């Protein structure tokens, strides 16, 4: 409370009555007091304390106009500082709607306000772009994961089919060996058995190629997934820094 009262710096030391009205002589006491008051407020402001104002200005005392002008200057400077802090604080928190209120700002104060608002608009755009990038990366990661899972199940099925084919081939070979051992020279049987064996061999070869191809693709997509994971990680870090 005392802090506020000491800032009320009344310009009149004698309760408002200018000595000029009673004696007809210019009151040097009042003028000196007014000048002292002016100096006090100016010194405070120069020190970065924008709370002080001149109150109780006696219009009859020389310097009254200067005191009004000082108050006006302090009002505008104070408003400029408050708007700067509030709008930039808000922008840092992502509240980009809270712009610098420019009305009432004049000259370079108005120019500064415009520059700050342009900066806030750019900050808003950058934040939106970063959000969009992170969203797209997350989407890609999800898609890659899905593909990877699908790939896993396909490889599993092919693996099972290869095992069965392998069993079939072994079974066929056993039959062929038995046929040769038992000396059965039936041409038809032999042809059938050969064709069967060739089909199995060809099928097994195709299967092996497919599995090889899929394994290659899986390795590639694994690399892709790793890359996407890295990108998303970087994007998240960048977003956290905003």
């Amino acid at each position, binding site marked *: 409370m005392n802090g506020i009262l000491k*800032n009320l710096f009344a310009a009149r030391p004698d309760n408002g009555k200018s000595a000029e009205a009673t004696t007809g002589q210019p009151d040097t006491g009042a003028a000196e007091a007014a000048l002292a008051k002016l100096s006090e407020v100016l010194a405070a402001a120069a020190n970065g304390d924008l*709370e002080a104002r001149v*109150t109780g200005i006696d219009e009859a005392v020389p310097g009254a106009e200067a005191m009004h002008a000082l108050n006006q200057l302090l*009002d505008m400077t104070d408003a400029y500082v408050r708007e700067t802090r509030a709008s930039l604080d808000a922008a840092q928190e992502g509240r980009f709607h809270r*712009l610098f209120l420019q*009305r009432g700002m004049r000259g370079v104060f108005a120019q500064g306000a415009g520059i700050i608002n342009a900066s806030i608009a750019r900050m808003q755009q950058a934040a939106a772009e970063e959000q969009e990038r992170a969203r797209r990366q997350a989407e890609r990661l999800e898609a890659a994961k899905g593909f990877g899972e699908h790939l896993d199940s396909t490889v599993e099925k092919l693996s099972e089919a290869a095992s069965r084919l392998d069993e079939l081939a072994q079974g066929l070979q056993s039959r062929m060996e038995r046929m040769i051992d038992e000396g059965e020279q039936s041409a038809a049987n032999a042809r059938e058995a050969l064709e069967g064996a060739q089909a199995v061999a060809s099928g097994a070869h195709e299967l092996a190629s497919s599995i090889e191809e899929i394994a290659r693709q899986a390795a590639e997509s694994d690399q892709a997934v790793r890359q996407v994971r890295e990108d998303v990680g970087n994007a998240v870090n960048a977003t956290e820094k905003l």
Partner: protein
Amino acid sequence: MSRNTAAPTGRERFLAHDEIIVSKTDLKGHITYANKVFLDIADYVEEEVLGRPHNLIRHPEMPRAIFHLLWEELQAGREIFAYVKNMCKNGDHYWVFAHVTPSFDEHGAIIGYHSNRRAPGRPAIEEMERLYARLRQAEASAPRPKEQLVRGRAELDAALKEAGLGYEPYCLSIWQGRAAA
């Protein structure tokens, strides 16, 4: 006597487009500074306002809910915006878009309150007249002040929900000239 007992005249005065009304109060809301623009538009001389409660210029048609919200935010150390209808010494009125902030000392303690008030455009005034009539009606529907306040605040929340905006974005969007929803 703290409150201005003049009856509202219904005559409107206008703050100039590029002028700012500045006033400061202590922690209790008593005026410690009022700039020339303040004094001129409200027809006061400095001695008449220094030390007086700021509600000296409160217009009876302002809903209490708005001032309640104002004090709530300020005491939490936050800035707040509000469209305010103020009353001159003789009962004339003038509209402002007020921006009120706490003032802090070097230790971060609140030492008073500061307001910059600017001239709103006609569409903003018309929209706020409508909103405040609605809030007043809600407040008038309750018998006691405490309940009046609750209803006023509830009605304000309802209006903001309809607009799909928080209080501050709502005020600022009107200031920036967004068409009413």
